[in-house]
C-alpha cells in the first residue's frame, strides 16, 4: 500500500517538475537539447532562407565562421552576397547596414562585442533609432544589431561592459536580452522579422550552454513576442527579476533559498525595451518582495528602472520591504581573477540580500 502511494507521489512530483520546466513553452521532450549558439545559428539560417532580403555583415562572420562561431556554416551555404566579412570599421559598416535597411533590405549587423558598438553608436541611435520618428512615420529601419554583450571572463575593462541600460534608454529602438536557447531562437527570429531597429544583446558565456527545446521551439516559424517576460520558476515568497546570464544566477540562488524554505519567483525579462512590467507587477503583488539582479553597473541601470516603475505603480503598496537591486559592482572590470569574480553578483550574493529582505538570518 505504502509503495503504491509512494510511486503515485513520485508520478505527481515528476509531472509537476516537467510541467514547471515547460511553463509557457509547450511540450518538452526529454533529450532535445540545443546550445544558445546553435539556437542563434539555426535562427539566422532559417530567416535567411525565408527572406532573400536578410543578410549578415560584420567582422569574421563569413570565412572565419564567426568570432564566436554563431554564423558557422552560413557563408558556405549562402555565399559572399549574403554573408559579408567587413573590415574593422564599425562606424562605416553599421552605417552601411542602416542605409541598406532604409532602402529595403533586412540586414543583421554583428558587432563582435557590443563594446565595439560604441564606435558606431551614432548610427545605431541617431540613424537607425530616430529616423522613423523624424520622417513622421515614412522611413522605417528594419535592422538587427546583434553580438555578445556584458562581462565575459578575463577580458578586462574595455571588453566587459553591459550596454543594456544605454540602448534600452532610447525610444525608437527595441532591445532584447535573451537567456535560454529557446529565447535566443524565438527572439532572434522575431527581431529579424520586426520592421523596427532591434538591438539584440547576447552573452558569450551562454553560447555553449545547452537548454531543453520543445518541438514548437524547433519549428521554422517559432517566434517569441518581443517585450514579454517569462516566468522561469514560479514562487510565492520573493520575486527575482533579471535578464541574460543573471537569470542563471537567480535560478541558482532560488535553489539555495528553496533548501531553506524560501520559494522565489524568477522572472526572465527576455526584453529590455519594451520592459514587461505587467509580469513583474503581477508577481510582486503576489510575493510582496522584489530584488532585481543584473550584471551591469548599478547607476541608471535596468534594476533602477524597474524599481522606479514599481514605486510609481499601485503595487508599491503591496511591498513588504523596499525593492532593491543586485548589480555588478560600480567598478571597471579588473583582470585579476578573484577580483573579477567579486565584481559580478553570484548566487550567494542574491541569497544574502534575499534573507535580509525577508528578515532571516
Amino acid at each position: 500500500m505504502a509503495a503504491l502511494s509512494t510511486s503515485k507521489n513520485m508520478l505527481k512530483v515528476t509531472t509537476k517538475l516537467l510541467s514547471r520546466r515547460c511553463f509557457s513553452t509547450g511540450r518538452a521532450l526529454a533529450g532535445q537539447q540545443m546550445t544558445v549558439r546553435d539556437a542563434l545559428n539555426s535562427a539566422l539560417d532559417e530567416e535567411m532562407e525565408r527572406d532573400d532580403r536578410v543578410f549578415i555583415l560584420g567582422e569574421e562572420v563569413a570565412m572565419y565562421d564567426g568570432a564566436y562561431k554563431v554564423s558557422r556554416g552560413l557563408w558556405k551555404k549562402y555565399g559572399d552576397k549574403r554573408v559579408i566579412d567587413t573590415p574593422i570599421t564599425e562606424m562605416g559598416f553599421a552605417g552601411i547596414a542602416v542605409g541598406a535597411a532604409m532602402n529595403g533590405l533586412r540586414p543583421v549587423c554583428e558587432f563582435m562585442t557590443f563594446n565595439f558598438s560604441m564606435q558606431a553608436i551614432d548610427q545605431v541611435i541617431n540613424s537607425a533609432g530616430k529616423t522613423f520618428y523624424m520622417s513622421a512615420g515614412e522611413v522605417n529601419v528594419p535592422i538587427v544589431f546583434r553580438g555578445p554583450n556584458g562581462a565575459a571572463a578575463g577580458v578586462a575593462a574595455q571588453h566587459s561592459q553591459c550596454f543594456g541600460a544605454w540602448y534600452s534608454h532610447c525610444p525608437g529602438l527595441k532591445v532584447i536580452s535573451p537567456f535560454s536557447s529557446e529565447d535566443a531562437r524565438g527572439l532572434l527570429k522575431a527581431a529579424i522579422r520586426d520592421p523596427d531597429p532591434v538591438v539584440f544583446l547576447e552573452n558569450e558565456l551562454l553560447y555553449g550552454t545547452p537548454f531543453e527545446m520543445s518541438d514548437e521551439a524547433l519549428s521554422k516559424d517559432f517566434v517569441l513576442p518581443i517585450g514579454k517576460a517569462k516566468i522561469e520558476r514560479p514562487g510565492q515568497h520573493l520575486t527575482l527579476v533579471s535578464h541574460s546570464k543573471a537569470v542563471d544566477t537567480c535560478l541558482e540562488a532560488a535553489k539555495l533559498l528553496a533548501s531553506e524554505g524560501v520559494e522565489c519567483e524568477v522572472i526572465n525579462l527576455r526584453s529590455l525595451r519594451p520592459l514587461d512590467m505587467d509580469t513583474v507587477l503581477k508577481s510582486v503583488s503576489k510575493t510582496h518582495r522584489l530584488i532585481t539582479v543584473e550584471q551591469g553597473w548599478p547607476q541608471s541601470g535596468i534594476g533602477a528602472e524597474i524599481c522606479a516603475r514599481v514605486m510609481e505603480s499601485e503595487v508599491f503598496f503591496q511591498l513588504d520591504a523596499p525593492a532593491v537591486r543586485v548589480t555588478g559592482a560600480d567598478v571597471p572590470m579588473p583582470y585579476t581573477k578573484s577580483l573579477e569574480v567579486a565584481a559580478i553578483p553570484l548566487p550567494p550574493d542574491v541569497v544574502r540580500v534575499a534573507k535580509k529582505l525577508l528578515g532571516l538570518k
Partner: protein
Amino acid sequence: MMSPTARLVVRRLNQRNQALAPFFTSTKSFATEASFETRPFKLHKLEEGPKTSVTVTRDEALKYYKQMLTIRRIETASGNLYKEKIIRGFCHLYSGQEACAVGMKAAMKPADAIISAYRIHGWTYLMGVPPLGVLAELTGRKSGCARGKGGSMHMYAPHFFGGNGIVGAQVPLGVGVAFASKYRGDDNVCFALYGDGAANQGQIFEVYNMAKLWNVPCIFVCENNGYGMGTSAERAAASTTYYTRGDYVPGIWVDGMDILAVREASRFAIEYCTSGKGPLVMETATYRYSGHSMSDPGTSYRTRDEIQEVRQNRDPIASFKEKIISTDLASADELKAIDAEVKKEVDEATRKAKSDSEIPMEELPADIYAAPLEEEVRNVAPWEPLRHKRIGSAVNLN
C-alpha cells in the same frame, strides 16, 4: 562669354529657324538647343572624363532655370522666416549652390537615390516635395513633408534619404542605400553628398574602402563651398583636393557654379558606376552666400568683397540666364515670366506655411515604431501615459 563654337552653332540654328519661320504661327524664333564649353574637369585616376562640350535643349534649360530659381526663392523666404523667428533652431541655406543640386538631379534616373546632410531644402523640392511641403516643414506645421516633426534637417521623399543632422553620418548611409541597389540587381546609384568640412570625417574613409572593395555604385559628392562652418577649407584639411581624397577611388573635379558641367559630370559618374566599375568621387566647387546657418552672419571668417565677387561674376542662376538669352533659347521676357511665376508660388507657400497649424498633441507619441509593441508611451509624469499612434506609411514594412 560664349565660345566661338557656341556662337556658330547658334547662328546656324537661328538661320534654320528663320528659314522655317513662315511655317510657324509664333512670331518668336528660338533656338531649340544650344551648346557650350565648360571649364575643364580635373581627373583623378581616370583616363577619360566627362565631355566639356555640353548641349542643352530649350525645354531643359527652362526647367533647370525654374528649378534653380525656385530653390533660391525658397531659401530667401526661409531666411526671412527665420529672421521673423517663425523658423526655429537650425536653418542652413543653399543659396549659391543651386547648380549642384539641379545639375545632379538632371542626370539622375527616376529611381536613383540621393542622401545629404542638412543643407537640403533645395533637394527636398527637387525630389518631389512642393515648396509648401518644404516651407511648412521649416515652420513646423502639419503641411510639412514630415508633418513638422523633422524640421530643417530631417526632410525625406521617395529615393531621398534625408536630411541628416550628424556631420558625415549620411555618407555610410548612402553607401548602404547603393549597396541595397546592387544587392537587388537594379541599376540604380546613390549620390552621397557631404561638404568640405565633413570630408575629413573618418567614417567617410571607412566607406570609401568598403564601397571600392565591394564595387558599390555610390557616387561620393563633396560639395566644396570653401568653408566648414567658420573654418575655411585650407584651415581644416591638409589636402584640399577633395576629389583625390578617395585615393584608390577615382575622382572628378567640377565647376559647381555651372549647372551643365555638373549635369555632364553626373552623367559620367552614373555611367561609370552602373557599368560595374564601382564608386566615384565628385567634387563640385561651389559657394554659399549665407553663413553656415542662420545664426552665422558669414562675415567673421571671410570678406564681404569675396561674397560680392562671387555674386556678381559667378552666380549660377545669373550665368545660366545669360547663356539662355544669348543663345536665343528663350527671351528675357519669357524668363521674367518664369521669375514671376516662381515668386507667386513661393510667396503663396510662404503665406500658407506661416498660417498653417501644428499637428495636434496626440501626435507627440506617434510613429516612434512602425510596429509598436506597447500602446502606452510614458509622458512627462507617471499616471498620465500617452498613446502611441501610427500615421505614416512606413515604406519598409513587409
